[in-house]
């Protein structure tokens, strides 16, 4: 089904040789089974440098699975993943991170015993010298409006502050691709707007590409360059949010009639 979709065809022009292109990420025939249950089936999926891509689709469609395959938290049953022209399919997670892939988990999982400063040190010490910790920390916290909380531990931060600190930590690694799994689930309308604003600024300033999974279609609308719809483990369709929203098939399997 997915293979016959014309939009997918266009993304299939893969550089098998591993040559550089403007595609930062390309998956080929990505297939994942959980003991016989197919979670993703031949997913060919590409993201351009600096692009913000949203991944939507019904519950159980395999969105989180795709993300976890890209980060290396899961191993694909078949297929491969190219990143920046290089086959990373068999690299362990931490090496993918070294190459610029960063992930923000859905539920904030900060290091509870450490202050904001010390939390930031965990990613920072991977890329900068001890002498620069303090300046970089302050820069980042300032950017995310958390400077006043520098010596606070996560428990005393609000939900929104925790979310921002998490994104700051992911950004501290200076990634070229950020993966966000349902970043605004459970956030209020106001906080959702804040996160959307933040993502737009980061992308404008740093040229980071994003893959964002989200069910909040209004949120998707405000941020996405392109939208990929996943269904039953395969790419159902791809396009701009307008195209996708108006696609009757997407409405049927995912969006429903209202909105």
């Amino acid at each position, binding site marked *: 089904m997915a293979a016959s979709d014309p939009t997918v065809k266009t993304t299939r022009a893969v550089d098998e040789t591993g040559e550089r292109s403007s595609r930062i990420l390309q998956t080929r025939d990505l297939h994942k089974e959980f003991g016989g249950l197919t979670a993703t089936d031949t997913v060919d999926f590409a993201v351009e440098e600096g692009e913000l891509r949203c991944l939507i689709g019904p519950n159980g469609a395999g969105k989180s699975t795709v993300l976890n395959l890209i*980060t290396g*938290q899961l191993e694909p049953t078949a297929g491969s993943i190219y990143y920046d022209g290089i086959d990373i399919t068999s690299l*362990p*997670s*931490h*090496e993918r*991170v*070294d190459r610029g892939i*960063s*992930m923000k*988990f859905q539920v904030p*999982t900060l*290091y*509870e*015993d*450490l*202050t904001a400063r*010390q939390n930031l*040190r*965990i*990613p920072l*010490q*991977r890329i900068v010298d*001890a002498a620069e910790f303090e300046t970089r920390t302050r820069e980042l916290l300032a950017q995310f409006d958390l400077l006043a909380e520098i010596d606070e531990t996560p428990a005393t931060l609000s939900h929104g502050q925790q979310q921002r600190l998490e994104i700051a*930590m992911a950004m501290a*690694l200076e990634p070229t691709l950020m993966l966000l799994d349902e970043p605004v689930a459970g956030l209020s309308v106001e906080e959702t707007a804040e996160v959307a604003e933040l993502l737009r600024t980061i992308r404008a300033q740093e040229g980071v590409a994003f893959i964002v999974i989200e069910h909040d279609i209004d949120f998707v609308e405000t941020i996405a360059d392109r939208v990929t719809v996943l269904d039953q483990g395969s790419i159902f369709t791809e396009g701009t949010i307008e195209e996708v929203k108006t696609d009757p098939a997407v409405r049927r399997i995912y969006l429903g009639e209202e909105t």
Partner: protein
Amino acid sequence: MSSEPNSSLLERVRSPFEGPNTLGNSNGFWLTFGVGVVSLALYPVLFGTYAAGERAVFLVYALLGVSLCFVWGFCGILSFGQVAFFGVSGYTFGIVGLNVSSYTGVTLGIVAGIAVATLFAAALGYFMFYGGVRDVYVTIITLVVALVLKTFMDQTAGGEWAVGEAELGGFNGMRNIPNLAIGVGDIGIEVSRAMHYYVALAALIGVYLGLRVLVNGRFGYAMVATLEDETRTEMFGYNTTFIKLVTFTLGGALAGLSGVLYVTWGNYINPQQFAITAASMPVIWASIGGRDSIAGTIAAAIVLQWIELQLSGEWALVIVGSLLVFVILVMPEGIAPRLRTFVLDRQSSSEPTTTPATTEEVTD
């Protein structure tokens, strides 16, 4: 963070030893630490070198406790197998020391003992962590490894179980292991029983300070991050599997050091060192002292051994066992962290003058 602006030199000296990963960073703590070190150093003077020679084993075992505290408290690996590295190192030292006579043998034995323990820990760690073994299963594998060693060593009684001059001895144990010494051929210094105390004390303090530097540095952050959330730490580009392996290996090396100090102290080792009771002791010390407090573990190891020696009647085990249950129920995080909270509360409620605590109050 200090309230005294003119102690900057002191602060600079102190700074590598301090950080969020150790509990005690205050002036009061260091004062207490100093008092503890001085009283331990004065022990032979006050109670005689004979007593010190006997009590040296407390320090040696405290070091074994530290080796566990390091892997458990700072990287979340609860190993029941520290005694395995301890014992393997002890036996290795014995084999080398009994075969290569003179100071050369002893010196070689020290190196060999620690090296074999380290390699053993590295191999076991590789086997487990790279095989995806986690949590309580690590605990149980390490326990089983110790028990396998016990079962194996127990049956090495026959003459066929001799490595050169050194008879493994099975249940009898290995005897006549040489004293600690350093040197080549006939030139060298032998550590007498009384001096052994100071060697053990120096090793303990050295390891303690070294670990403080380590856990408050880059690697320490990585360890603690791994302890708190492995998946997440991996997503910051850390190879958590490798971090666990390194930590576990280092813990094995420390246990190995402790094993060498043990056999050179008693000139004897037997398979009982691998038994479940022996294997539990480091866990008990770390639990009671505070698993993330190195100093707490040291203090608990020393105090508990002392208590056990004092209580020798039939109620001894009942008392020790009840104490264990009591501490776990009442102070699950261990005594040292609890004491620290207590001291901090007192300080914040009264004047911020630090009252030097007694030795038992050493918190890390």
